[in-house]
């Protein structure tokens, strides 16, 4: 497997930030109440992860081992601040939706984890790719989680989209008189849904392993057959 494919596979599935490493639960719980919120935060996270991985990889020759963690945190916090300011100035409508979540990216330990585990040991290009792909892995999980919670909680999808793309509107999936299911919107609902998603991932992995094993056995039997 080429190094790029491996990075992509790790980020999206095998080492997925949420499903495999179960990192970054704080922003995950706070923002996955609706699909639009979740995906928006995820997109900002991709940006910050790619930038911080790139920056740390560029600077890795100058960072003494003993003080690497404070320096990493400094880099990440500065970049988040800059992204926060730029969002506020140039994408203000989106900022009104995301504003309170952007500082939460600092608390997302997946950013620090990738900087420490990957960017500090690899070249800048690979590090930026790893950050972006890990971010995409975060987005699809948090987006799916947000969609499930929103659907169960309010019976809609994409509510709030009009704040990001004017002229569009939310999709009413369940009947108008759907009473809503509050717990899906509250933090416990996030844990329930996330737990089920992690279980589903483990089940899929387990099934894939079993199949690979069965195939191997079949091949061996063929080879040993007279």
């Amino acid at each position, binding site marked *: 497997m080429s190094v790029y494919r491996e990075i992509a596979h790790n980020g999206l599935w095998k080492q997925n930030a949420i499903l495999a490493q179960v990192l970054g639960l704080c922003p995950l719980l706070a923002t996955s*109440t609706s699909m639009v919120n979740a995906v928006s935060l995820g997109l900002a996270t991709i940006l910050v992860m790619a930038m911080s991985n790139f920056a740390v990889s560029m600077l*890795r*020759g*100058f*960072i*003494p*081992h*003993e*003080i*690497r963690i*404070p*320096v990493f945190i*400094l*880099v990440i916090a*500065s970049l988040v*601040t*800059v992204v926060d*300011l*730029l969002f*506020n*100035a*140039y994408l*203000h409508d989106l900022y*009104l939706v995301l504003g309170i979540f952007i500082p939460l990216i600092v608390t997302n330990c997946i950013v620090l984890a990738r900087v420490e585990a990957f960017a*500090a040991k690899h070249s800048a290009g690979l590090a930026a790719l790893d950050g972006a792909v890990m971010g995409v892995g975060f987005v699809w999980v948090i987006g799916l989680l947000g969609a499930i919670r929103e659907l169960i*909680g*309010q019976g809609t999808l994409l509510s709030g989209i009009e704040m990001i793309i004017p002229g569009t509107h939310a999709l009413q999936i369940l009947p108008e008189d759907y009473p*809503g299911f*509050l717990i899906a*919107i*509250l933090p416990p609902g996030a844990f329930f849904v996330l737990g089920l998603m992690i279980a589903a991932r483990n089940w899929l992995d387990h099934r894939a392993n079993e199949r690979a094993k069965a195939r191997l056995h079949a091949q061996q039997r063929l080879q040993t057959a007279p």
Partner: protein
Amino acid sequence: MSETTPLPETPPASALRIALRTAAILLAFTLVFTALMAGSYQLTQPVLRATAADAKRRLIAEVLPPADYDNDLLADAIDLPPTAELGTTEVTRLYRARKNGAPAALVFEAAAPDGYSGRIGLVLAVRADGRLAAVRVTQHKETPGLGDYIDPKKDKNKAAPWIAQFDGRSLEDPPAAKWRVKKDGGVFDQRAGATISARAVTHATARALAWALAHGEQLYRLPAGTAYQENRP
């Protein structure tokens, strides 16, 4: 500056040097990244100030239609000290809307300290005739899907949002004693399961309205840009 080279048998004297060098590197990083943040702050500041003014104008437009006044509202403002009747704990701004030079409305902030989960921030416009033009919730932490209907953006009833029932009301309509939610014997609706949020907003609105009536004349008279002081002759 290599990252993982194990230190060769360092004589104790140089331990201090290493510590100093590490500290200097950390300091250098701090300076560079602080400069980066300060730079982006400087760069974005003019845009931020413009959007903030814009957002304020939009917020005011929600409680008071721009057609109802012809002065530069954002410039015709005075500072209010923290006021118990308004529930404010910081200095807030009060805007005076005028039409053809005559007082039209006061736009100011208030807060309900007794929401279900903490403070509920409000903005109100009170017309010169004592009627409330409108009140809106600016910030709250009420339970999503339950108490957050006080914010019309979250209210499921888009045609007649809950908060719109205050439009055009005054302290004579209904009389002050009836400025309560129906559950408490008043005239204002509440939604099942979340009376506390509705009660907090209703009471805070009544208090703010009474305050504006009591101090209105004085508030219109103060020169723009000054700070209002209670009990000033």
